[in-house]
């Protein structure tokens, strides 16, 4: 039990009459990289939103880092150590890179409540260090995110999660809108995280990427977890069969 980072029990979310997520039981161990796969509307993003406190679950329990948790919002989840790269990037287009990296947790020179004076130099330095560490290429830190390519934006978003030493990183389709080279760059960052032993949940549609990067694959279909397989015990066709519903029933992982 001690090496389990995240565990959910009967996690359920209804949007009105829509049962977006039903009784999801999920576990993530220390240093483990797990992929979540499934068709559009299968409940992947809903699952992520319940864990990260963006939405409030209808039913079920979540344990994180050994404690049962009830996050009332994303900031609480983040303070507990869950960092998320969202599908819609969650960057502010009109702000520069340091401002985006530190959005919502700015370094402050003088604390004057909402009118606290920002420590812009320190944030800039920390940003440079973070980008060097994750090997992200950005020509100019002070230009706004609006002027950057999709890959650069995604890298900024990922650098943000990697900067703040966290206990769990969640990425929701981090390469969905990226080109080949940019995707490779993001995947390299993910490998670096693996080497550092940081646990990760990767929501992805990309079969090759999933088999390249993760240890375990969880398949969602119609709001339910239908498969939970170690990478070496399965293959692409098998996963596709679960995603499309050709294979049904809960495929359970053998106790290790």
């Amino acid at each position, binding site marked *: 039990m001690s090496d389990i980072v995240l565990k959910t029990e009967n996690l359920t979310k209804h949007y009105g009459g829509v049962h977006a997520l039903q009784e999801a039981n999920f576990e993530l161990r220390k240093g483990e990289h797990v992929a979540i796969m499934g068709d559009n509307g299968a409940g992947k993003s809903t699952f992520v939103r319940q864990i990260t406190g963006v939405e409030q679950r209808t039913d079920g329990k979540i344990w994180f880092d050994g404690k049962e948790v009830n996050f009332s919002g994303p900031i609480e989840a983040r303070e507990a150590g869950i960092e998320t790269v969202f599908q819609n990037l969650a960057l502010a287009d*009109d702000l520069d890179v340091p401002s985006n990296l530190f*959005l919502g947790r*700015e370094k402050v020179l003088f604390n004057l409540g*909402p009118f606290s004076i920002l420590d812009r130099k320190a944030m800039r330095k920390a940003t440079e260090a973070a980008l060097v560490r994750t090997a992200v290429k*950005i020509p100019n830190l002070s230009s706004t995110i609006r002027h950057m390519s999709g890959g650069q934006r995604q890298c900024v978003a990922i650098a943000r999660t990697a900067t703040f030493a966290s206990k769990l990183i969640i990425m929701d389709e981090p390469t969905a809108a990226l080109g080949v080279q940019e995707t490779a760059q993001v995947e390299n960052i993910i490998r670096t995280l693996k080497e550092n032993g940081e646990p990760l949940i990767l929501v992805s549609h990309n079969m090759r990427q999933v088999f390249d990067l993760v240890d375990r694959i969880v398949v969602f279909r119609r709001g339910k977890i239908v498969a939970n397989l170690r990478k070496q015990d399965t293959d692409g066709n098998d996963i596709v069969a679960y995603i499309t519903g050709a294979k049904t029933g809960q495929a359970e992982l053998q106790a290790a």
Partner: protein
Amino acid sequence: MSQTSHGIGGLSYDAKKRPWPAEFNVFLALVILVGAFELIGRVFLGDSFLFNTRENVSGIFNEQRLQIIILQVSIVGIIAIGVTQVIICGGIDLSSGSVVGATAMIAMSFAQVATVNGNPNPKAMFIDYGWTDLPVIVPLLVAIGCGLIAGLINGLLIAYTRIPPFIATLGMMVTARGIAKWWSKGQPISFPTDSFAAIGKGLMPVVIFISLAILFQLILTYTKYGKHCYAIGSNEDAARMSGIKIANHKVLVYAIASILASLAAVVLSSKNLTAQAGMGVMYELDAIAMAVIGGVSLSGGRGSIVGTVIGSLIFGVIISGFTFLRLDAYYQEMVKGVIIVGAVVLDQWRQRRRAIGA
């Protein structure tokens, strides 16, 4: 700044070739406008718009005209500062003009003298209570209180009932104007104390306007509050997911905007030595126009107080320039309308060109 020639990760970057700040374009427009009035004046009237042409007055510039230009925009300019941060935050405030009216009436009635020329002040609202000749801090606090209440109502409505800012502040616009008329049943309120009258005397409105502009430019650039304004206007979902307390921030933004409007009311009623229920009509639109002309994007996330100040100067130059050319006030309004629409079209065009370039 040791690494300006190189970007992060080995990409080269030439700091000299970065795009101009948007404020520079606005300033250029101001210069061109002044130049145009100067040229037209020289050619058609044989007189200078900008420079001193009279022998009996010293100085290079026509100081009188320059003073009038900035003086007549400084009161609406104070409102425009508040409106700018509201627009940057992705909102809009239509209530500021009416808040000026209501605040002017209420604050002025706490700033009245007891006797005029030896007789009891005929206009004094609270003479029966003995609330006359009060220290200047009283009407000032009353004004700030009025602004705070109006702003809190705006902000709470927008943040918690999630109605569009346009509707919430439209409601406040109508309501506050009603309060302004009801307060003294339409009667003007006059005869302020000397200390109250000093607030708007001479060039004091300009001093207040510029001080507030500098203060808020610094706040928007160097504080958490400012950073969050841009973040919310730029991508509200991102701001929310980053843990910024959107609702609290919005309440604060609208409260500050209305407090600035109420300060403008103090300056205006002090300058005019009277308060009337019709004060500040259309000021909200002039203030929005100043911000828009100054490059503040109505879609939020972009703009600055510096831009708005230059925008307000463009406003002042147009009004003053038309007077200088002895054109009817009707034309001023028509041209003002064209310039507001033109500024927004220009902003859209600039945005689209930028999007293609990215």
